[in-house]
């Protein structure tokens, strides 16, 4: 009877599974004290990727660049096993310094504490700057202002601005932080990326952090604004209202064209106002931009020729094509040459 043999097979499997199950039981109870160590960092995340594999983790901002590079690379070299994920710069470094990943995407330079972590685990790396992310600050097309200073933005978006529903509400604070205090009387609605976004973090770090530190404030923005992970939603909301306020990655603002007004930015009140363009972002004269990096594990590169090929490919296709495709600003020629020589001189 066929049915009988089917069930006999099932029971054989049940036996195995039950044995596994009870194993799991004992090791779990043994390990409960170690759980705190492994739970958050997924330090035990071994992975079985063998020699020729390439695993990239890290910043979700840089992820689209690496995804494009990996995609194009795989078209040529389908035999190489490649995977890209984007849990965040911090999580990425945690894995990278534990030796679990080959390349770590980062939307900021590695922190000292993270570098120490790497050193403690004997992970040596090379830092490669691959592109620049500019942030455009914007409003509806009919907004009369043309230039905003860091002080203006602080008085509109810092935690101290919580509750401001009119641009002019911010004037008192604006004067305190070194602005001119002449923001217009118009309703203020803010749409911007939320805390889960790299653009949010960069905005705080570049525009707000120094003043927040000075004034003993928590390093964050005001909470009461509409956040969206979708850049098109942000652009839509901002463009529909001439006294709105928001910020997005530069490429999205450029694409939106005349439907929004992109502000020129001056770091100091009364300083030179600079509009974001690929040129001003690339030469760092536009103040709200950040560098994007990849970090490559040196030992893994030495042991894995596929990884070397991959990074070589990144230095060419990645810097020249993928960065722009992913809507970031490519490096200028000098910076590009610098990155390439950093990789070759590893």
């Amino acid at each position, binding site marked *: *009877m066929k*049915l*009988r043999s089917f*069930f*006999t097979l*099932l*029971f054989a*499997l*049940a*036996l195995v*599974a*039950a044995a596994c*199950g009870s194993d*799991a039981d004992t*090791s*779990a109870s*043994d*390990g*409960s004290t*170690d*759980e705190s160590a*492994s*739970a958050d960092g*997924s330090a*035990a*995340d*071994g*992975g*079985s*990727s063998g020699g020729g594999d390439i*695993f990239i983790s890290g910043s979700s901002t840089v*992820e*689209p660049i*690496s*995804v*494009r590079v*990996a*995609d194009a690379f*795989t078209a040529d070299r*389908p*035999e*190489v*096993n*490649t*995977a*890209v*994920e*984007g849990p965040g710069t911090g999580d990425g470094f945690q894995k990278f310094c534990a030796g679990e990943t080959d390349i770590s995407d980062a939307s900021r330079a590695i922190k000292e504490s993270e570098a120490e972590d790497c050193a403690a685990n004997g992970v040596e790396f090379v830092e490669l700057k691959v592109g620049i992310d500019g942030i455009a600050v914007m409003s509806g097309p009919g907004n009369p202002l043309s230039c905003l200073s860091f002080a203006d933005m602080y008085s509109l978006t810092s935690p101290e601005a919580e509750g401001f529903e009119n641009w002019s509400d911010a004037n008192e604070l604006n004067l305190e932080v070194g602005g001119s205090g002449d923001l217009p009387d118009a309703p203020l609605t803010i749409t911007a990326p939320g805390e889960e976004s790299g653009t949010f973090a960069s905005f705080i770090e570049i525009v707000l952090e120094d003043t927040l530190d000075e004034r003993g404030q928590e390093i964050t923005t005001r909470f009461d604004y509409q956040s969206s*992970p*979708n*850049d*098109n*939603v942000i652009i839509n909301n901002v463009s529909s209202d001439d006294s709105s306020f928001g910020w997005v990655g530069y490429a999205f603002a450029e694409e939106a064209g005349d439907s929004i007004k992109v502000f020129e930015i001056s770091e100091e009140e009364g300083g030179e106002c600079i509009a974001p363009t690929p040129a001003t972002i690339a030469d760092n004269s536009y103040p709200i931009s950040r560098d994007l990096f990849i970090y490559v594990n040196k030992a893994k590169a030495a042991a894995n020729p596929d990884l070397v090929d991959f990074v070589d490919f990144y230095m060419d296709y990645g810097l020249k094509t993928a960065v722009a*495709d*992913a809507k970031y600003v490519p490096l200028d020629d000098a910076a590009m040459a610098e990155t390439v020589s950093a990789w070759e001189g590893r």
Partner: protein
Amino acid sequence: MAIAIKPVGGLTPANIGESLRRKPDLKGALFQFVMLFSLSISIGVLVVLLYTVVSDAWPVLSTRLGDFVTGTLAPDAGRAGISQGLKGTFYLCVIVAIVAFPLGIAAAIYLEEYAPRTRLSSFIEVNIRNLAGVPSVVYGILGLAIFVNGWGISALTGGRSPLAGGLTLAALVLPVVIITTQEAIRAVPSALREAGFGVGATKWEVIKDHILPYAAPGILTGTLLSIARAAGEAAPLLLVGTITGFISNSPGWFDVRQVQDKFAAMPTIITSWAKQPEEGFRVENAAAAIVVLVAFVILLNSAAILLRNRFEAKRAG
């Protein structure tokens, strides 16, 4: 003593026949209509849902269905495909089948055939019913803490892998498998058991030769439905962690080592695409992936329903 019949409500022997004839029951008809209408809404929703999904997916289905099914995750919406998601979901289903079915069927046999009427047995029963009601996202926590990061276990599963995801989903469907198997076993006529014991068979011999074959269609129905459920579950996989960015396709379909590797799965690909800003991903590709997933799930469901109907008809006849 004569019995006096008092006319009630103007009834007399002369007109009683007339009053027994019913007026048309308008209220009743209306009620029936409302019930039927509500039922039609539910069915209408299903139709609208399928229509919306298929029409959103049409640009993909009509132009590049083959490439879409065999293609890999890619940054361009016009080129992205779901083969890796299909492969991941296939492995998840296989692992669920290997782990949850034997365990679930064995547990159900114990509870129905062996379990003494003790506190422990009834505790196990209650526990299983409660497990069936635990939200799927909570199983994701189990998967994350035990199968992905658990001390010692992570080395076995390879971290965020089909094995970890499959074990998580197996835990998720286990209570359902146990409960449906119990129901199937309970439906076995006790005469069958007694006849078996009567000719000197041991308990296990009765179970394997009489009870299981008789209950098999019911058990299979339940297991097919659980596989369909496992294939469509996204929440636990979000916590276990699947790749939705990029993963190359090099290991073949039947290279078993990939159960310990990074993987993609249909429901999480759909989730990630449905949340993308770009329309090609958010609408067209997500809908096309849904069409494929729903086709698979409906296929399993229909198989289960057909199987059940056939055997019900056989038994009845």
